């Protein structure tokens, strides 16, 4: 990870002077590097030996693309802070934030050089993330179920980790594992938000306000009284709706345990060495338990 951090710093040094401060603000503090870690772990699960240049490059680019999604998310959600610091659009303005996003994407593709399979995977990722965001927004404030949540989360965070797995193992065998890991991460994020945790970087107020279908929401709105407030916020106060979500936390945690078990089974079935993948599952599962 230290090597990756150095690479990101070197990359920023070579970027335009105009955007350097914004890029340093975005990249040089607070990242958990969980997506690069997923790429490395998936590589380790199928091969031995040192991490090759192509995999290291993919890890750098996934971190770039992940940050693009964070910048856009923060603008859309009107989030003033992330991980306790001002978001890029708050600090540098929306125009700079949007233009920097475009710059990062273009740089990401350049960094991939002649890795055509990797480029195809990043293109898949950008398309799926765009579709997922639109779908999530279109389906807000609707009385949907856990299966709908699974579909949205699978395309949103799930697609990110699917691509990480494919970039790491380069055979597609761990794609399903990546999807399950993403689903688990998304669900833990949802549960953590309801618990009021800052550990995952965001609060749950935006999702509650916008009627976004989170895992606790999908479980809570099975109750018609909760569904009424969820679909029409004027019908009751958000604190009351939050109470319904909190009541469903044990059920949500049990559902996440099931997803984690699916992930472990997938790792044992398709990895040469499942240990690094199971470690990822355990680490992710802890995110909602702080």
């Amino acid at each position, binding site marked *: 990870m230290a090597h990756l951090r150095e690479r990101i710093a070197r990359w920023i040094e070579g970027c335009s002077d105009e955007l350097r401060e914004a890029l340093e603000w975005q990249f040089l503090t607070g990242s958990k590097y969980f997506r690069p870690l997923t790429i490395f772990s998936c590589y380790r699960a199928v091969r031995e030996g040192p991490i090759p240049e192509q995999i290291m490059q993919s890890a750098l680019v996934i971190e770039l693309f992940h940050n693009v999604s964070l910048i856009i998310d923060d603008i859309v959600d009107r989030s003033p802070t992330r991980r306790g610091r001002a978001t890029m659009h708050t600090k540098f303005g929306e125009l700079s934030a949007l233009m920097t996003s475009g710059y990062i994407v273009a740089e990401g593709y350049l960094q991939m050089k002649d890795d055509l399979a990797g480029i195809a995977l990043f293109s898949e990722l950008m398309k799926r993330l765009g579709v997922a965001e639109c779908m999530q927004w279109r389906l807000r404030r609707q009385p949907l*179920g*856990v*299966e709908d949540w*699974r579909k949205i989360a699978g395309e949103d965070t799930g697609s990110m980790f699917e691509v990480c797995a494919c970039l790491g193992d380069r055979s597609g*065998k761990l794609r399903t594992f990546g999807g399950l890991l993403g689903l688990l991460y998304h669900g833990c994020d949802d549960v953590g938000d309801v618990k009021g945790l800052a550990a995952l970087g965001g609060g749950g107020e935006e999702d509650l306000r916008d009627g976004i279908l989170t895992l606790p929401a999908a479980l809570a709105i*099975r*109750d*018609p009284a909760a569904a009424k407030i969820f679909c029409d916020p004027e019908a009751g106060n958000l604190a009351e709706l939050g109470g319904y979500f909190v009541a469903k936390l044990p059920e949500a945690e049990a559902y996440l345990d099931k997803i984690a078990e699916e992930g472990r089974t997938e790792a044992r079935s398709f990895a040469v060495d499942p240990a690094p993948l199971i470690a990822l599952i355990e680490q992710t599962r802890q995110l909602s338990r702080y």
Partner: protein
Amino acid sequence: MSNAEDVFFGPGRSGHDPVTGFFMAMRDAWLTGAGIKENGNGQSMPGGNPGAALPASVVLRPMISALGAMADLAAASRQGFGQPGAGPAHPSPGGGHEPAAADFLLPMGQAMMIAANRSVSYWLGLAQIFESHQATLVQAIGVKAVDGPVAGSERLVTADALRALLREVGNLATREARLLQNELSALDESLVQIFQKPEPSGSYRRRWRAKV
């Protein structure tokens, strides 16, 4: 072969040479498969599980029989069948490896066993899924019959549970197919190793030059 062996390995293999025994074991497997299909098409008990009419031993016997036949083949392979020229893998005059009957039959048998194993695993998985969703299914059918039209929220919950069931069935089929593909790929790779031509000798040198 003793009576006890006959019970387990079936009549197909008794008194035959290993190759014939192997083919007869495969035939037994196909016949049993056809029997299960026929049973499922019309001879099952009303409302019962079509496969339940056949005891597990009947289904498993041909597989056991095939395993036994393969064991015979492996043994014969080691002994060269005791006949000159009939050996499964004898060295060629040039010292290379000449493919023989057993070299083809063993992988075929392994492929058959892999497929049968995946098939059984799929059906067991399916049974587990239906077992875990039994309450939902009963609720889906029963609530409307007892209480009349179901409330909107309850319908949503039931629909969600049924969608989960469908997803799990689909995922199981995909997963088993991927496992089957993996296992057959490994077998394919081992076949490539068996039939790979020997490396050119050390004295071999290419006779062309790279362009400058």
